[in-house]
């Protein structure tokens, strides 16, 4: 009975899909601006991808419900204002002598070529504007750009203010941290009643034990693993939940931001350096068991290795997640290009397949990061074993 129902559901979906695409072809034949729509849709897809990957000063729940987030800048004192204060202003470039460019507001009847047009966001109440992502303490009339030798425009009149604002990434990191705290607090308080946890903690306990038994103890050893367990657990669950949050259509991209992965890798680096024992430093500077000339050759390589290992952690996580997002969103954009049922089904199936792989990648990257971190910690607290 259940199999018949699912088969019927599949046939129904395919039927609807074929009817829908046939209707679409008919309407395309009617209009003759197909070339026009084909030309700017790739740019629309690129803009859609950029919008999802980049950080923003507002939080868009769905198209039309924008929640402005506070902007906190340092401009001789902390200034806080809401990003809803900023309105888009279209300007046209005015080329002056000596290849400097200033801006003039675009009037209602001005028609300017596309590459002489630009826009910036200006604050209505205060004297700030956002130009290409930088917050400046001037409005469009005071800005000056210069065209340098490669033909790129550089802002010469003002420099960006230091930006501490609560952007979309920061807000979602806070929310996920609060969720993690609540979930694990529930687990730890449920241990007061007895050795078996109750509630949501029952889901988390096997995962915690997995990290302790399969990642921490084999790599760090029985003697020292307890010191590092809290950091390993934090890193694992943070990266995993943040990657999963990136899979939602809200456009959250936390580990795809190199600053976040940089800080995680930096903390790993600092912990290994500050809790390492004599054997670790001995292995770097004076590797035992090799002839003396080799020790001098190995020393700079080992020193570089201490920096490169956390650096590779950062790059691996950032590149995996960003590449996954870009591929997934390009495929979703590609679905709109499909003109017949077969290509639509193929792209849709590929997107679904890649989405499921992305879920695996979310877990895998968290596991790899945690495992390599535990490996580096283990190398830092290794006991001395006699060299053969």
């Amino acid at each position, binding site marked *: 009975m259940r199999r018949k129902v699912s088969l019927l559901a599949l046939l129904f979906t395919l039927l609807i899909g074929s009817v829908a695409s046939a209707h679409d072809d008919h309407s395309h034949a009617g209009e003759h601006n197909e070339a026009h729509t084909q030309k700017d849709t790739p740019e629309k897809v690129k803009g859609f991808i950029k919008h999802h990957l980049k950080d923003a000063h507002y939080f868009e729940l769905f198209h039309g419900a924008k929640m402005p987030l506070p902007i906190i800048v340092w401009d001789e004192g902390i200034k806080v204002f809401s990003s809803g204060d900023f309105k888009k202003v279209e300007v046209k470039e005015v080329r002056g002598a000596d290849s400097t460019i200033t801006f003039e507001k675009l009037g209602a009847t001005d028609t300017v070529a596309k590459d002489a047009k630009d826009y910036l966001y200006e604050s209505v109440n205060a004297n700030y504007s956002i130009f290409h992502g930088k917050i400046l303490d001037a409005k469009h009339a005071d800005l000056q750009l210069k065209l340098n030798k490669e033909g790129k425009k550089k802002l010469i009149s003002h420099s960006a203010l230091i930006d501490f604002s609560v952007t979309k990434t920061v807000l979602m990191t806070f929310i996920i941290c609060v969720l993690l705290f609540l979930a694990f607090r529930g687990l730890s308080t449920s241990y007061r009643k007895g050795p078996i946890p109750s509630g949501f903690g029952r889901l988390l306990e096997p995962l915690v034990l997995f990290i302790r038994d399969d990642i921490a103890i084999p790599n760090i050893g029985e003697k020292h693993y307890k010191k590092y367990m809290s950091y390993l657990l934090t890193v694992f669950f943070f990266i995993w939940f943040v990657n999963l949050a990136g899979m939602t259509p809200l456009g959250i991209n936390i580990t795809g931001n190199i600053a976040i992965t940089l800080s995680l890798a930096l903390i790993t680096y600092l912990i290994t350096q500050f809790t390492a024992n004599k054997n670790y430093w001995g292995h770097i500077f004076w590797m035992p068991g090799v002839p003396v000339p080799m020790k001098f050759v190995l020393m700079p390589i080992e020193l570089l290795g201490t920096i490169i290992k956390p650096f590779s952690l950062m790059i691996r996580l950032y*590149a995996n997640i960003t590449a996954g997002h870009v591929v997934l969103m390009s495929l979703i954009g590609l679905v709109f290009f499909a003109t017949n049922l077969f290509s639509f089904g193929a792209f849709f199936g590929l997107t679904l397949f890649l989405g499921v792989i992305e879920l695996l990648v979310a877990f895998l990257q968290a596991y790899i990061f945690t495992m390599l971190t535990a490996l580096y910690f283990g190398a830092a607290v290794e006991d001395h074993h006699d060299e053969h």
Partner: protein
Amino acid sequence: MTIPNIVGAGLIVIGAGLGIGKIGGSAMDAIARQPEATSKIQTAMIIAAALIEGIGFAALFAA
């Protein structure tokens, strides 16, 4: 997206594919020899694959 960039990206993919393929192959051989060590071999395979993919991605970003 110039031609040298694309050729470089292709070479990187060839390198990463060969490396991970070799690891996967020897992992399969090892599992066939000793099926009860499957989980250990699987873990080691995943770790090695992630390391190689890390280099691959880093190079891909530079290209």
